[in-house]
């Protein structure tokens, strides 16, 4: 495919071009063109989220519905509840690392590179959503014309942000209930458990419906893995962005000197924040043990058989009785 369909906007090493759409090569036929959509950082980010989310879902939901036969079967198949919990926690750690990573690259792009904030939701997205729905029902003549990220994608992105925040916070409470109750009432723990489960169910069901439909069913959208999206999809879902690219309105590369100056600020701040977040994560993961350590069972006690009932009535009165000669031949 790569051979038959020449790509446009190949990563030339110029980051901004790669990041924000590529100019269509004048020689290539427009219908065959692919447009750069996600850079490597984003694709790695997605892989981290994809893998951790899937594992979290697969190990978490059976715990939520643990008494259901299917859930029990899943847990036992995955190696028992203790193993499942370990896997869940490893995946949670990956998710949190991913969150720190995402925060880092996003902040870099926003503050150092000064990219357009195309993921910010706005009133237009609400209108787009209603227009799309009305169009689907035949109540509106045209599909909405949407930019780099449409309302479906924004909804999903911010749902992940919100969901991750809820899951990480409630997860911390469940992982560290003793530390949590140092500051918060005990009731917060079962409440966190309820929220953790509810939010998880909401997230998984959303992914299964919304995400799967939009990027797997409606059209098998490989751009998050390949980095490129076909023109047809661009036309349908991101027509404004396509027009922008084709009009050659690329973002002007920022002043290299300013970038260098901002990087000088960003790197130490980012390092400090990332390191403190990583330390926090380490604390999160390792602080409490009582929930997973085994309390030793009590030692067994040694007992002596007392006078059995049948012989209880019988006790030699004096020592003399013991010595008294008795015929023992019968």
């Amino acid at each position, binding site marked *: 495919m790569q051979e038959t369909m020449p790509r446009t906007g190949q990563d030339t090493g110029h980051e901004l071009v790669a990041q924000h759409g590529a100019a269509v090569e004048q020689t290539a036929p427009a219908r065959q063109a692919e447009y750069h959509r996600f850079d490597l950082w984003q694709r790695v980010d997605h892989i981290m989220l994809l893998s951790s989310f899937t594992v979290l879902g697969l190990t978490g939901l059976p715990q939520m519905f*643990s008494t259901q036969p299917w859930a029990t079967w899943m847990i036992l198949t995955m190696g028992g509840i203790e193993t499942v919990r370990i896997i869940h926690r490893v995946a949670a750690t990956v998710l949190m690392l991913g969150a720190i990573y995402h925060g880092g690259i996003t902040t870099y792009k926003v503050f150092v590179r000064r990219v357009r904030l195309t993921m910010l939701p706005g009133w237009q997205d609400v209108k787009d*959503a209603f227009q799309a729905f009305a169009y689907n029902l035949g109540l509106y003549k045209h599909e909405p014309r949407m930019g780099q990220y449409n309302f479906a994608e924004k909804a999903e992105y911010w749902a992940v942000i919100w969901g991750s925040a809820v899951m990480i916070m409630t997860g911390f409470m469940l992982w560290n209930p003793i530390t949590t109750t140092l500051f918060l*009432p005990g009731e917060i723990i079962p409440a966190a458990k309820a929220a953790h489960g509810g939010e998880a169910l909401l997230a998984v069901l959303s992914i299964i419906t919304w995400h799967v439909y939009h990027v797997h069913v409606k059209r098998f959208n490989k751009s998050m893995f390949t980095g490129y999206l076909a023109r047809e999809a661009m036309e349908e879902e991101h027509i404004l962005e396509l027009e922008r690219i084709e009009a050659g309105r690329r973002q002007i590369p920022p002043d290299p000197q300013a970038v260098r100056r901002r990087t000088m600020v960003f790197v130490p701040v980012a390092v400090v924040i990332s390191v403190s977040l990583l330390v926090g994560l380490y604390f999160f993961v390792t602080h409490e043990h009582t929930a997973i350590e085994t309390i030793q069972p009590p030692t067994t006690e040694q007992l002596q058989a007392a006078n059995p009932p049948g012989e209880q009535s019988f006790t030699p009165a004096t020592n003399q009785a013991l010595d*008294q000669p008795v015929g023992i031949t019968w």
Partner: protein
Amino acid sequence: MKQSVQQIFQRSLPFLACLLAAGLVVVLLNGLPALAQEQPSAPVSEQTPQAVTPQDALPAQMPGAATDSACKLCHADLTGTLALPSGDELTLGVDLSALDASVHGQHAAQQLACTDCHADRQRYQYPHQPPPAQNLQEYRADVAQNCERCHVSSELHNPGHLQAQDKTNLPNCVDCHGSHEVEPAAAMYAAPIAFCRTCHQTFEDPALAAVHTEVVASLDSPEHNCTTCHSDTVQPVDAQCKNCHSLLTSWVTLESGEVIDPHVTPAHIDASVHGFRDVDGKQYTPLACTDCHRNQQYTHYPHPPLEVANRRELTLQREAICQNCHSNIFDQTRDGIHNHALQEGNKQAATCFDCHGSHEIQPPDVPRERVVATCGSCHEDIKEQYVTSVHGAALLADDNPDVPVCTDCHGVHDIVQATSNEFRLASTEMCGKCHSDVNIMDKYNISTNVMETYVADFHGTTNVLFARESAHQEINTAVCYDCHGVHNILPATDENSQIMKANLLTTCQQCHPNASENFSAAWMSHYEPSVEHYPLVYFVNLFYRIVIPLTVGGFALFIASDVYRRLWNRLRRRKGQS
């Protein structure tokens, strides 16, 4: 002496002539001795010899003349003795008053005549010949034969003596009952032991002497005498066992210095589960001693001595007895903790007898309190805890049938190690069995959703999953008794209860040592979250119960519309193409 006999003879010649005539008649009539023998003897009880009348066996006497007047004439006054060839002296005088006072005298329906017993007409025809007996014993034996003319034969009356292997020295009727002064049998039974002792003065077998002396000394009632053991007929083995062991009083000292009481009270066996029983309308009689003590060495007397070093060894040795009948239960005990301990060398571990007793076994759970007493005889500390618990107190107070006793939780014969993974893992089901039963819990106004709320929580979830994974899985999460206590379980309203709110943190800290004040409230105390109890949890649940269907439903609706539109578009395009 001969001279005096002649003098008497000469003086009373005419009278004797008359007597002779009468004697002739008697002798003639006695010519039918066979007839007398062949007449069936009346069924004579040895207890009631006075019922016998001589008429039954003897020929009719001549009326009006005493047949023995002549005998008495001489023998009443005789003071001399007759020397028998052996040198024994035969007393010739007869105490007529003693004769008269005897059962054959005035007590008899018809007084016996001398010749009724001294019936050999050849010998007693006057003048007598000296008796053919060589010694006094032979003489007595000879006279005793005459008893059988009226009384039952000695084979029937006294077969015991006849069993003796040495038959040279058998006693005859006269030896026991006496001769002229023969007493009613009842008089003999007044002091039966002393009576036997007139002959049996020593006990010859030194191996048995001590036991025999002890048993004889214990023969304290008229029903107990020599014949208790030495009866006329051969006793069943069981009776032999009981005869001796019910009379033994002294203890057997073992090598260890410990003593064994060989005494067995047959009445206790009769009253035990192995005694007289009515099971489902079937009547059972007591087990015999040898039903349990089957070893051949116990089927005859004397049996060999105990060959055990101490009492415990004896108990352990005897345990195998029970499996002869109770094999299924015995097999169960092989898997039990007590037997495991025993196999590992703890000889104090409980065996059948330690719990059930031996000769006096009673139904083990009647009343149910008995179970507690039995287990408590070894597990004393636990028993003390139990009796103060909510379960134990109710049991002791009014024999409450709903509360568990030891065996309800621990099992009976195949008792599991209570500290084992298996027991711990299964314990919640065990508690839940009663505590989920509405029929039981409603009586005490106790919630029955304790299992559901437990399983819904972290501890219970883990427990259930572990149990489903493997029954042998080790678990560290709390089970019922980690929080509520084990044997000392108290109601949550009791101020000493481990789960009382004031004490709950301490209970949590058993496993979560760093837990702070707030931590214990993280456990919802078996409450379902509601507006009153744990409202935050309730509202979080409510939130997601609304948000999830709304969100996912909205997504689904949009997707459905999108699918619809795409199909519609495709259809239209196809139409346009065609």
